[in-house]
C-alpha cells in the first residue's frame, strides 16, 4: 500500500511545487548574499538612532539601543545641511537637463548615414572614451574658463557622456527609417522629425538615460572635491565626505545651539545619521527606477 503510493506523491509534489532540495539550497544561498546588501544599511540606521554609550560599547547590531533622535535633530536644525540637499537637487536637475539635450543633439545626427563627415564626428566622440588630457590639464582648463569654485564646474565639464550617447544612438538606429521618409514627404524637416517622431518613440530609453545622468551626478564627489572650495557650493556628497573624514562633524553640532554637550552626545551617531540622510533620496526612488537601469545596461552592451 504505502509502497505503491509513495512514488505517486513524489510525482505530484514535483509537479505542484518548485521547492525541491536543490531549489531550497539555491534560494538560501541567494537570500544570504542578498542580505549582505541590506544589513549594512540596517546597522548604520540602527547606529544613527542609538546613544553614544551603546555605540561605543558595541551593543548596536540591527536595532537601535537607547533610542534617540538627536543626530537627526542636529542635521535638520543645521541650515547648511538642508540647503546642501536642495542645492544638490538643483545641480542634479540642471545637469541632467543639459546632458539630455546634448546627448540627443549628438546621437540623432550621428545615426544619419547621409550626413557628410559622420565618421569624423563619431571618431571625435569615441576617442574621448579612451584618451583624456588627465586630471591636471582638465583642472587647469576649468580654472582658465573661470568655472573654478562655481556651480558650473559641477555641471558643464561632464555634461555629455559618450557611453550614454552610444546607447541612445543604437536605440535611434533601431527605429524604422520609413518613419522619417514619410515625415519628410509630408514636409517635416530634421528638427521636426526628431521632436515629433524620434523623441516620442524613445521615451523609455530617454528615461533610462535621464536616470543614468541624474544618479551619476547625485553620487559624484570627485569633481566637487577638485573644483569647489566655497562651502555654499559644496554638494551633499562632499559635505558627507568631510563629515566622514571627521573634519566637519563638530560644525553641525555647534551650529545647533552651540552646546558642546550635544557635540559630544552625537559624536558617534552623527556620521551614520548623515549617511542615512544622504542615502534616503536614492532609496526612495530606487525601487521604481531600477528596471530602467537594467534596460539601459543591456542596450549599452550593443556595440557602438
Amino acid at each position, binding site marked *: 500500500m504505502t509502497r505503491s503510493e509513495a512514488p505517486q506523491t513524489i510525482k505530484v509534489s514535483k509537479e505542484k511545487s518548485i521547492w525541491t532540495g536543490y531549489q531550497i539550497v539555491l534560494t538560501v544561498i541567494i537570500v544570504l548574499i542578498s542580505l549582505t546588501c541590506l544589513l549594512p544599511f540596517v546597522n548604520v540606521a540602527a547606529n544613527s538612532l542609538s546613544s553614544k554609550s551603546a555605540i561605543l560599547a558595541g551593543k548596536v547590531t540591527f536595532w537601535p539601543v537607547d533610542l534617540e533622535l538627536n543626530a537627526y535633530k542636529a542635521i535638520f536644525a543645521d541650515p547648511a545641511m538642508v540647503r546642501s540637499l536642495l542645492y544638490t537637487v538643483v545641480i542634479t536637475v540642471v545637469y541632467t537637463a543639459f546632458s539630455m539635450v546634448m546627448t540627443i543633439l549628438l546621437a540623432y545626427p550621428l545615426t544619419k548615414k547621409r550626413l557628410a563627415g559622420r565618421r569624423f564626428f563619431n571618431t571625435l566622440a569615441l576617442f574621448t572614451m*579612451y584618451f583624456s*588630457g588627465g586630471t591636471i590639464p582638465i583642472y587647469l582648463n576649468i580654472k582658465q574658463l573661470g568655472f573654478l569654485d562655481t556651480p558650473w564646474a559641477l555641471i558643464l565639464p561632464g555634461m555629455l557622456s559618450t557611453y550614454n550617447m552610444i546607447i541612445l544612438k543604437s536605440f535611434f538606429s533601431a527605429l524604422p527609417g520609413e518613419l522619417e521618409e514619410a515625415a519628410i514627404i509630408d514636409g517635416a524637416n530634421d528638427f521636426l522629425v526628431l521632436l515629433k517622431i524620434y523623441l516620442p518613440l524613445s521615451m523609455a530609453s530617454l528615461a533610462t538615460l535621464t536616470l543614468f545622468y541624474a544618479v551619476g551626478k547625485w553620487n559624484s564627489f570627485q569633481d566637487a572635491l577638485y573644483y569647489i572650495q566655497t562651502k555654499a557650493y559644496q554638494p551633499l556628497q562632499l559635505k558627507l565626505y568631510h563629515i*566622514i573624514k571627521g573634519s566637519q562633524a563638530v560644525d553641525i553640532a555647534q551650529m545647533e545651539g552651540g552646546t558642546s554637550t550635544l557635540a559630544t552626545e552625537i559624536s558617534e551617531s552623527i*556620521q*551614520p545619521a548623515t549617511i542615512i540622510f544622504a542615502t534616503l533620496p536614492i532609496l526612495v526612488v530606487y525601487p521604481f527606477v531600477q528596471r530602467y537601469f537594467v534596460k539601459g545596461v543591456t542596450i549599452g552592451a550593443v556595440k557602438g
Partner: protein
Amino acid sequence: MTVTAGSNKRRRRSWLQDWRLYVMLILPISFYLIFCYKPMAGIIIGFQDFNMFKGMWGSQWIGLENFRFTMGMSDFSYALLNTLWLNFLGLICGFPVPIILAIMLNEMRSIAVKKISQTLLYLPHFLSWIIIGGMVLQIFSPSTGLINSTLLRWGWITTGIPFLTDGPHWQATYTLVGVWQGMGWGTILYLSAITGINMELFEAAKIDGANKMQQIWHVTLPGIRSTIVVLLILNVGQMMNISFDRPQILGNPQVRKYCDVLSTFVYRTGITNSQFARATAIGLFQSVVGLILISSANFVSTKLGEEGIW
C-alpha cells in the same frame, strides 16, 4: 565625367539640405572641443617647468625632467604598484562572482524571491562611494564596528581585527568591498546572455541525461563564453585605471603605503600641492599606458575571434 559631376552636385545639395543636422552638432561638438580636446593640448605642461603666471606658452621647456623626477619618487612606485595590485586582486576575486551569481539567479524557479534578491543585489551600485565608504568605516571599525563587536562578543577573537588600519588587511577589505559593490550589477549582462541561449540545447542535454552541474558546465558556460571573454579583456585593458572615490574615502594615513594609488597620488601632488607639471606628467604616463593596454586588449579580442570593442 557626367556621373562625377552629378554625384558632386548631389553631395553639395545634401550638405545644404542637412544644415539642420549640423546645427544640432554645434553644441555637442563644441563641448568635446572645449572640455575634452582643449585639455589634451594642456598635456604639454608635463614637459615644462610650468609656471601659473607665465602660462602654458611662456613656461620653460624641460623635456622629460618631470617624468624623471616623479618616477624616481618612492611614492610614485607605491602608487603604481598598488594600482596594479589592487586592480589585479579585484579582477581575480571579483570577476567570477557575477558569473556564478548570474547562473544561480537563472536557476531559481521562484520568481518573487528572485526579483527581491535582484533588487537588493543591484542596490550598492546606486550608492556613491562616499556613502558606501562611510558605511564600511562604520561596520569595519576596530572596536565599535558591527563585525568586530560581534566577533568579540561571540569570543571568536580577543582583539579587534584591524580591517582598515593594517596594510594587507586594508587591501583585502578594499577588494572585498569592491566585489560586494559590483557583484549584483555585474550579473545583468550575463543574465541577458544566458536568456539568449537556445532552450533546445538544455532539453537535449537533459534527454542525454546531463544533471544540473553538467548542464551548467556544458551548455550555460559555453553559451555565455563570448560575453565572459569580452568583459575579461575589457577589464584587463583597464588595469592602469583606478577610480578615485573608493581609495580616497577608504584610505587613511596609517596605511598610506598600501592605499595610495595613481589617482589619489595625482590629486595630492597636483591639486593639493599645486605641482601641476609633475602631476600632469604622471597623468600622461597613465593615459598612454592605459591606451596601449586597451588597444592590445582589443587586438587580442579580435584575434580570438571575439567581437572587438570598437
